């Protein structure tokens, strides 16, 4: 009974340590996506570079792709751009641009200025498809396998470390068991 206060202090200490430990994760504000392991939401959206053409999940079937959410209004997308370009140039997987809540002219100007790393860019002007995908900020990236199942999601700008430590192993896993 005399040890009680000591035990209480120790328990509080453990709680504090756990809190500090958990807050070490730099990406702790990212929400876990309920979509992982489920079929990607279907969409059919206008193609940025071709007026009148629609492109969607039906056209993406059969092989994995990386869906990258971006907007010309998004400063972090600019930081991500060189990393994404390098990754896209490796031609490891199709990189689909998801231009979110953007003006057509702004999006075109952005790609003109920084370069277009995407295999194709679709535009979600109203943000309705974005809600289906649970998108809440930019940049966000989704890895979808050949069967159309979401296998991985990353919130925030992709870095070389994230690509090497998370994306590439996941991609290899998908390719081993398609």
């Amino acid at each position: 009974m005399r040890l009680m206060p000591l035990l209480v202090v120790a328990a509080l200490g453990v709680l504090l340590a756990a809190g500090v430990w958990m807050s070490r994760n730099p990406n702790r504000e990212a929400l876990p996506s309920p979509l992982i392991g489920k079929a990607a939401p279907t969409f059919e959206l206008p193609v940025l570079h071709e007026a009148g053409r629609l492109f969607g999940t039906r056209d993406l079937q059969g092989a994995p792709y990386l869906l990258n959410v971006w907007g010309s209004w998004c400063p972090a997308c600019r930081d991500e751009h060189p990393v994404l370009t390098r990754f896209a140039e490796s031609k490891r997987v199709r990189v689909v641009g998801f231009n979110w809540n953007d003006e057509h002219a702004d999006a075109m100007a952005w790609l003109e200025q920084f370069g277009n790393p995407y295999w194709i860019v679709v535009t979600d002007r109203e943000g309705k498809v974005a809600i289906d995908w649970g998108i809440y900020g930019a940049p966000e990236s989704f890895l979808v396998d050949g069967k159309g199942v979401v296998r991985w999601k990353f919130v925030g700008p992709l870095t070389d470390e994230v690509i090497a430590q998370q994306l590439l192993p996941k991609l290899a896993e998908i390719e081993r068991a398609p």
Partner: protein
Amino acid sequence: MSGCFLHRIRLAALVAAASLLLMSSLALAQPGTPVAPPEFTSSAEETRFHALVSELRCVMCQNQSLADSNAQIATDLRREVLELMRQGKSDREIKEFLVARYGEFVLYRPQVESKTWLLWFGPLLILLAGGAVVVAVVRKRAGATNPATDEDQEW
């Protein structure tokens, strides 16, 4: 007099210009164009809408409800909520719609399930444990009280 009036107009114009400038610089951080606030068909609809969006968390800003947030995603989600309401969806169905996309996080009041039992009933458990400790301590003291000490007390 008229000089003062003119001055006031000029001041108002300056304030307006400054706030416009401020707004446009803030807009850089957010996508899209400003959207007009929703128009309600009835006050019942308005009441229900406000009750609903104040129970949903803004996914972007995390410490604000959908009702309070100015983020573009919050605007989009508010519009979606109103649309779902007009499609005849119940509050429960609307919440399920958002949970399916953004996870449990969007609910300010998490659902009662095995995963959230500790969250819901934890405080009650701690209160009960505290009560039990107090009762134990009081009993022990009462039992240990020496009748002799009572006589020493001045009152």
